[in-house]
């Protein structure tokens, strides 16, 4: 059957007898855990962040189970602390860390190449080139982990994770051994005295892994014409096969450590050696370090962004031409946008209106940096909004402090925002934090988190109370506000009050779940409409950047003011009734009463189910 790379990794984990898997959602990795959660034999969890996911999987491994942690590339940075020490201890049950890299930054803040982590942590890394290998390598990774007493990394990239190709399924086999701890303090207690000894062990392990790499069946030599020999692997192998159908190939299934003898033999058989790899010259540098000179590497293959058959053809095929554009005019871009009725829109609108400096974070609201909202001035990594806001507040004067806020989503706050907020309270920062609580991890496609009240399988559980949490971290109760962002006037007032206060303030959006979260919203409102007679064409509503509102120049001409005067306009706003769900923002923004609903009163937001709270 056809499986995506992510589905195939999940299937491989199931077939390998995995008992525990944990993750934090992040493109392109999210579907791995979502698929694993559909196998009832595996205890699957969304963790608050990747470090938590990693540590939980470590614990399950320590207790003897086969365990998996999956995350996007930047998530490995979060998990790196325990990772770089568990490599010293080795494993009890098989332990696999899946890193899903995102070359081209389809949905990421950087495009780091996580093959470096394998070398850094001195662990083996397998890299599949299609879904069949994604499944097979996942299974093999658990065997390697147990055979060599090491965590194993499995690296996928967006084009492997999100491409589908045929996979032959196998049965599930659980290793025949009891679950339980093995008491071995010199192996599992990383005191300096013990860790010093373990460092020697893992260097010896790496030598054994190098020998294993020579025999790994996932490495393939395909000899054809010997004028060009291509060393490649992962998705780059598939692209190179399209462009060099007659060349000889050494396809690396193990990205680290490298099979040195195999590479030596291959290089000896071909005239010219090409290393074709996406992102960094990782293999190239390590092969050069073995003493070989290469004909092609990053001197010709682009270093930034994804590779593709088109890119390789442009570099290597002199007869290839990208077709001439037959349409000369500009094509209006269609970037991702906040949805009609999105609760973030109101917050960003108010922040822009007040000309505040906004530290943003990682989530849908990062799109608020784009026109027309343009209400974001910095965004780095998960939780950084609060962190950088703290430091900035310590060097700004009172006026500067009152013109700065940070915004962070609920899931991102629980991932990495709690300790920076603690830092703010602890160091008495004069700063304002806005938690955009939309009841879900929205950008990655609606995953549960510790604030939603549900687990990955939909089971009810406790839900964090953000106000109580802020209080416990040391924020003064008078500085903790909950406000419905769809009520623009009220929200504006609260932002004004809190930014003028001394001390740390926390504003939490209330009754504002993600507009796509059908679990939370029982009914949307009737669509609104623009009154063609009174619309002045001022375009203020268009500043909201709502996909349901458009500008109609065909309505240019005259309009009537409230007191009956006739004036000229350049056009009117129009609301698309198919897209509008009556959130009411444009109704509040319009100063001429030209936006109307079926009923006289337009509610602030939608009809909601009660939010899950502290089920016990």
């Amino acid at each position, binding site marked *: 059957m056809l499986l995506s790379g992510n589905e195939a990794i999940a299937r491989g984990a199931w077939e390998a007898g995995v008992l525990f898997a944990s993750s934090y959602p992040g493109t392109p990795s999210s579907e791995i855990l979502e698929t694993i959660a559909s196998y009832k034999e595996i205890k699957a969890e969304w963790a608050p962040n990747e470090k938590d996911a990693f540590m939980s999987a470590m614990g399950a491994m320590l207790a003897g189970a086969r365990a998996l942690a999956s995350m996007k590339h930047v998530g490995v940075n979060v998990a790196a602390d325990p990772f770089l020490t568990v490599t010293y201890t080795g494993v009890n049950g098989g332990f696999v860390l899946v890193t899903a890299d995102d070359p081209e930054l*389809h949905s990421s803040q950087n495009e780091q190449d996580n093959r470096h982590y394998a070398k850094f942590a001195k662990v083996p890394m397998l890299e599949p080139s299609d879904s069949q290998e994604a499944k097979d390598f996942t299974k093999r990774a658990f065997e390697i982990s147990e055979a060599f007493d090491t965590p194993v990394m499995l690296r996928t990239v967006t084009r492997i994770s999100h491409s589908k190709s045929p996979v032959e399924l196998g049965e599930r086999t659980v290793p025949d051994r009891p679950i339980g701890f093995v008491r071995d303090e010199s192996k599992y207690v990383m005191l300096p005295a013990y860790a010093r000894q373990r460092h020697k062990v893992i260097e010896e392990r790496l030598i054994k892994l190098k020998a294993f790499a020579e025999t790994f069946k996932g490495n393939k030599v395909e000899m054809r014409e010997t004028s060009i020999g291509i060393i490649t692997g992962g998705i780059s192998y598939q692209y190179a096969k*399209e462009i060099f159908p007659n060349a000889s190939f050494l396809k690396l299934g193990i990205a680290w450590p490298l099979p040195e003898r195999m590479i030596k033999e291959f290089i000896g058989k071909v005239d010219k050696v090409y290393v074709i790899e996406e992102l960094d010259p990782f293999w190239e540098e390590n092969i050069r370090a073995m003493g070989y000179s290469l004909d092609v590497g990053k001197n010709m293959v682009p270093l930034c962004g994804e590779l593709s058959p088109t890119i390789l053809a442009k570099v290597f095929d002199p007869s290839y031409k990208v077709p001439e554009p037959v349409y000369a005019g500009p094509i209006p871009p269609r970037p*991702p946008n906040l949805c009609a009725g999105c609760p973030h829109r109101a917050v960003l609108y108010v922040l822009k209106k007040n000309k505040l400096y906004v530290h943003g974070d990682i989530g849908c609201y990062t799109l608020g940096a784009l026109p027309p909202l343009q209400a974001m001035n910095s965004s780095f990594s998960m939780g950084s909004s609060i962190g950088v806001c703290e430091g900035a507040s310590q060097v700004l004067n009172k006026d500067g402090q009152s013109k700065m806020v940070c915004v962070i989503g609920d899931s991102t706050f629980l991932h990495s925002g709690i300790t920076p907020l603690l830092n703010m309270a602890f160091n008495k920062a004069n700063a304002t934090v806005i938690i955009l609580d939309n009841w879900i991890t929205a950008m990655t496609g609606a995953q549960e988190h510790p604030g939603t009240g549900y687990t990955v399988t939909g089971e009810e559980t406790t839900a964090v109370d953000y106000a109580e949490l802020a209080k416990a971290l040391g924020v003064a109760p008078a500085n903790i506000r909950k406000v419905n962002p769809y009520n623009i006037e009220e929200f504006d007032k609260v932002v004004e009050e809190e930014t003028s206060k001394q001390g740390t303030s926390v504003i939490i959006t209330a009754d504002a779940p993600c507009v796509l979260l059908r679990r939370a919203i029982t009914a949307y409102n009737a669509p609104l409409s623009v009154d063609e007679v009174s619309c002045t064409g001022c375009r203020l509503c268009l500043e909201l950047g709502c996909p349901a509102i458009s500008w109609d120049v065909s309505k240019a001409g005259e309009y009537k003011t409230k007191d009956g005067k006739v004036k000229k306009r350049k056009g009117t706003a129009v609301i698309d009734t198919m897209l509008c769900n009556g959130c009411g923002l444009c109704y509040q923004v319009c100063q001429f009463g030209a936006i109307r609903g079926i009923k006289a009163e337009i509610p602030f937001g939608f009809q909601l189910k009660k939010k899950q709270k502290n089920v016990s």
Partner: protein
Amino acid sequence: MGSGATNILVAGVGGQGVILASDIMADTFLEAGYDVKKSEVHGMAQRGGSVSSHVRFGEKVYSPIIKMGEVNYLCVMERMETLRWLNYCSKSTIILMDEVEVNPPIVNLGEMEYPRDIEEILRNNFKNFHIIPAANIAAELGSERAANVVLAGALSMLLDIDQEIWLKSLLARLPKRLHELNKKAFLAGRAALPNF
């Protein structure tokens, strides 16, 4: 340097069912005995964004993405999106396009104009350009949402794969209550393509 695979690019706007249409195609080709690869990018708030899916089938397929200039069939659910993918096409590409227009935000804001000369450009440059009023056909059958299936039906007329395999793949991906509508939509799509 081509690999001999058949390349289909399905494109449109988020929410139109581009991914489902390409899933049905990929399932069909696998069922018909071919090697298949299919690729699209998920992530970010894709509502209203451009969506495209590459589907490739043949005896052996390596890359999951199509080389520019080598698309055999371009199936598009929104007029302007057709323009975005023309550099993936050659003169011999067969284009199936729905007439639906969805304004992007920048057009809504009046800062750019929706291209007006799309049909003329396509007619002048591609011998095999066909308008399939998929959304209208689907709406007449009961739901505009089946427009993607109408388009898949039209494509099926151009490929030598048994209609029953298509229908099997289609229905396997849908809940029972939608079977009747989508079967009709698929057959209407087959009927919508003029003989050539």
